[in-house]
């Protein structure tokens, strides 16, 4: 596997959320808005990359029997660092994530990558793997977050939770899109409020996963059809060869 493939595999082919269904708890809980999803994703990127680096650095000195405890300690240390940094520099994000910030410790993705990849590979590869997988996780979270926030409030806000130092700005809103066609048009109080609540989270993620499964089944069917066609073609060629051989034999017999 080249370094580029190693980096890119986490985005679509092995996406942690949509393909492996790892880290479903944060994927449902913190994706109320675009910004909290982005913040959570970036924190996971940091923890995953640094824990992968440290695990692959110390893998030679860890006895095989106490592997899992050591990984848990390493991950918990980085989560504590991240928790303190977030509390110091992004208190709004810290409040919004709540209990799910310390719960990064038990995210299956991080322990899974440490056991499956970082404990067997070189430092640089592990770092790239952590970065790619973490960014893939972020991509998944942000995708769900954008969908939920747009459906719930009719727009995407930026600057409410992340410390960008300016007043919150609206990135996109339904009014903006409609005003492209029809000037001075306002929809006040647009929004399907259920998508900010718990049921909306389940239903939104269910719809997204169904779309992924639909695409995957389409691709699988295409591959299956292509394979069947190939087999039929081979059979035809073999049959023709047989016929030709039989014809030759008949000619030889006729002489």
């Amino acid at each position, binding site marked *: 596997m080249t370094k580029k493939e190693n980096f890119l595999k986490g985005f679509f082919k092995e996406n942690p959320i949509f393909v492996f269904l790892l880290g479903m708890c944060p994927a449902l809980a913190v994706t109320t808005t675009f910004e909290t999803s982005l913040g959570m994703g970036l924190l996971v990127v940091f923890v995953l990359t640094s824990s992968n680096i440290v695990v692959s650095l110390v893998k030679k000195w860890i006895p095989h029997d106490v592997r899992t405890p050591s990984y848990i300690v390493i991950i918990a240390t980085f989560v504590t660092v991240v928790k303190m940094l977030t509390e110091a520099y992004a208190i709004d994000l810290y409040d919004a994530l709540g209990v799910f910030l310390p719960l990064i410790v038990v995210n299956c993705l991080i322990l899974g990558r440490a056991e499956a990849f970082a404990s067997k590979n070189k430092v640089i590869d592990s770092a790239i793997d952590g970065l790619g997988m973490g960014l893939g996780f972020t991509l998944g979270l942000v995708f769900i977050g954008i969908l939920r926030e747009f459906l719930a409030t009719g727009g995407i806000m930026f600057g409410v939770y992340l410390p960008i130092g300016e007043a919150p700005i609206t990135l996109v809103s339904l009014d903006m899109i409609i005003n492209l066609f029809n000037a001075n048009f306002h929809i006040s109080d647009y929004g399907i409020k259920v998508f900010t609540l718990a049921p909306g989270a*389940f239903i939104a993620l269910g719809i997204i996963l169904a779309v992924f499964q639909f695409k995957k089944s389409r691709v699988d069917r295409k591959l299956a059809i292509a394979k069947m066609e190939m087999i039929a073609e081979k059979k035809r060629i073999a049959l023709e060869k047989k016929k030709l051989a039989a014809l030759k034999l008949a000619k030889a017999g006729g002489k």
Partner: protein
Amino acid sequence: MSFTIFATAIISAMLINNVILSQFLGICPFLGVSKKSSAAIGMSAAVLFVMVISSAVTYTLYDLVLYQYGIPYISTIAFILVIASLVQFVEMFIKKTSKSLYKSLGIYLPLITTNCAILGVSEGNITNIWTETMPYWEGLFIAVSTAVGTGLGFGLIIFAFSSIREKLDASNVPAAWKGVPISLVVAGIMSLAFLGLAGII
């Protein structure tokens, strides 16, 4: 008086703030649980058991050690270590004492360390219940009651869902929705139903 606290904590943790349907903790075992109801019961019994002990231990640790010595910032790393060693200890104890108990409950114990419901409840106890002025015993009582309620709520949903899975597997679901997507939508509908219980207390 104390019974009122107990009942309130249990109802609010079990039905109103249900651990799976409104706090999103323990989604993995919820989605992955097999349609066998015996597995669902074993899993939730193991979770309930570990959850009650671990919240008592972590609350005590936080109140009597971490807060007293001014080091509450290491709570996350201390809690995960406590929970992980507790799980190991309980598993070893059950393995040595009772084979039948191990068969029905112990096999789920190794999966519990990375179950976010346990750590989530311990962390939630600190942020929601613990205050500087609250006496130790009172706080411990509320924390343990909350843990009991949360564990029961977990068991309720897992058990109900295992029965629904049985129906789902027999019904004709469109190919794109088979498996996890339809389970999530069913969970969403269950969650909507549980929103209606918010007015009890």
